[in-house]
């Protein structure tokens, strides 16, 4: 059973229900707000529109990828190849764009290919019974090596006019922020209210019980990975269209960033619990931390140590909260 859907005693107040259902999300939200206030007081420019825009828009692709990652982790699996896949799909998108294909093809192809590749991964996990960490460790190598073999490291430049969707704005808000917000809300609603959403929680929480209740686990796992591929494809397009050039190497450590966002966002690595809202908030928190350390003049040499401490503190706070609720 998921924490979000756990039965709450009838006498609980609405607030209490919110806290027990979305405790981790609220902690992270509070952390974001507190950080913004503290750093904003220290240096008001932190709260300027342009800085908030760059925190949200510049890292939205991580949040979008973390939505899919959260679903995969909730289903009791993991994907360590996500960074490599984003790199490959971004290059695919850019290659199509400069190759004279219509721009919508350059946007759609990564999504389609992402779905297909990850459905294949899901099939190996579900039908061939290879643990997902093994399949995706293998995929990590294959995609990373394959990308360099094919591109020889050449950057993609000369992208056509109108391709840079990540630089577009709607009502003054950058497109990546729209993608992040709309996809997060849609995915959260769907995870909570659709039959398939509950299936994902069920197979992550207790696969045997799920099987006994008539869920076809193999097909569901393939579907979860395929859906994850959809989000990875969108993340790749956002990643590819941020700048005027596309680097044809895999972004270093991107998989760790995405996984960290998911798990710090409250998705249990053991499967069965968590929400995609938490992972998106965690992605925003990390982006805000990265930016605020520069604003607070933390010595660049100690920056990563402080980041590590903050992640650890978030995790420990969450564990303390869970023990108290139990």
């Amino acid at each position: 059973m998921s924490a979000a859907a756990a039965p709450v005693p009838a006498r609980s107040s609405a607030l209490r229900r919110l806290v027990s259902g979305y405790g981790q999300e609220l902690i992270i939200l509070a952390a974001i707000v507190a950080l913004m206030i503290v750093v904003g007081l220290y240096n008001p420019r932190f709260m300027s529109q342009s800085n908030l825009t760059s925190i949200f828009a510049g890292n939205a692709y991580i949040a979008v990828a973390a939505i899919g990652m959260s679903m995969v982790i909730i289903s009791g699996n993991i994907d360590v190849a996500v960074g490599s896949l984003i790199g490959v799909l971004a290059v695919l998108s850019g290659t199509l764009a400069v190759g004279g294909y219509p721009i919508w093809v350059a946007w759609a192809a990564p999504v389609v290919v992402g779905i297909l590749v990850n459905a294949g991964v899901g099939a190996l996990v579900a039908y061939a019974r290879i643990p997902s960490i093994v399949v995706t460790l293998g995929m990590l190598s294959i995609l990373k090596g394959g990308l360099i073999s094919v591109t020889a490291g050449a950057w993609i430049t000369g992208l056509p006019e109108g391709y840079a969707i990540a630089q577009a704005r709607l009502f003054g808000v950058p497109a990546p922020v729209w993608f992040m917000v709309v996809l997060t809300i849609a995915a959260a609603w769907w995870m909570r209210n659709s039959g398939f959403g509950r299936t994902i929680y069920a197979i992550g929480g207790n696969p045997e019980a799920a099987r006994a209740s008539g869920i076809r686990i193999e097909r569901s796992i393939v579907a979860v990975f395929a859906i994850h591929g959809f989000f990875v494809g969108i993340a790749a397009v956002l990643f590819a269209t941020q700048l005027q050039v596309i680097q044809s190497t895999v972004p270093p450590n991107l998989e760790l960033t995405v996984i960290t966002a998911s798990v710090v966002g409250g998705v249990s690595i053991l499967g069965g619990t968590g929400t995609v809202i938490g992972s998106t908030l965690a992605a925003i928190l990390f982006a805000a931390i990265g930016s605020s350390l520069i604003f607070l003049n933390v010595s660049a040499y100690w920056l990563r140590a402080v980041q590590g401490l903050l992640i650890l503190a978030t995790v420990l706070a969450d564990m303390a909260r869970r023990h108290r609720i139990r």
Partner: protein
Amino acid sequence: MLKKTLAFALGLGLMSGAAYAQSAWTGGDDLPTNPLACDGTPAAVASKPYDGGSPTNAPDRKGKPLNVVDVPKLIGIGYFNATSKGIADAAAELGNVTAKTDGPTQANIDQQISFIDNYITSGVDGILFAANDPVAIAPVLKKALAAGINVVGYDANSQPDARQWFVNQAEFNGIAKAMIDSLAKESGEDASFAIVTSTFTTPNQARWIAEMGAYAAKCHPNLKWLETVEAQEDNVLSFNQATTLINKYGDELKGILGMTSVATPASAEAVTQAGKCGSIAVVGLATPNAMKPYVEKDCVKSVVLWNPVDLGYAAMYVLRAVADGTLEPGATSVKAGKLGELQVINGSEILLGAPFVFTKENIGNFDF
């Protein structure tokens, strides 16, 4: 008890870390600096005897076909694609050389050592390298020399006795002068600026930052350094870091120095997207193709770089000359194909030339 002792030891370690001698600017190394004269008068060069190594029992390779491997710091970035192209061009021109480029996908000392080790075993005639760390790479290069392989470095040096010759793209203090002079000219003598680099452990970048600090103190004392940020060799991270700097300092920030061919175009993009073209100068090391859009839009006025294609080309010619025995210890110059005569400096280094400043007028003539 044990725990306490160890915590104490760890604490000591932390304190000693803070006690390091600090270079003036974050990201610079602590080696002695040697800033050039402000007006560009060349420094008097003390001649130095050959201090490179030599291969043991190398077979006579004069005029014979050579099998050469090039192991750069990493593969997959524009800069080393360009050096690799220069090496391939020179090999094709020479006719009797087969050259291939192979290396790690991340600038990683361990992997680079393994690559070189494997090529020693496979029995190549010559190795070209750009070192991720001058000391760490030394043992494996010495092993190559001991196996009779000709070893020539380019771009990033090793300890001198671990290789025969090093093709120096431009001296550190020369790069530093070109960067700081361009910055002062474009953003004003009293401008505040920040630096975007790859990592603080990358030797070349650390050397340039230290030399820039020394040269600025000597010749442009009113320039104000704000801070240095790390951005790996990562496009998007470089862009985000540069954007954060722009947001943090607002109108105070007048210039950004990009220390890598990745950081400079990403910084230019950040300035463009922030609508700050003209009010924030971007000066940096970069390859012309990546910078053309910004230079043509007048957002970037000067790009400092040597020609990496020429660098690879020269390295290949030097290796051929060493194998043929035409370049020997004590020589003062070497012929490098279309580049003509190149000078020997510092005992066992070959200087490609002064750094080149690309501007709107000449950038269209380069394609790499």
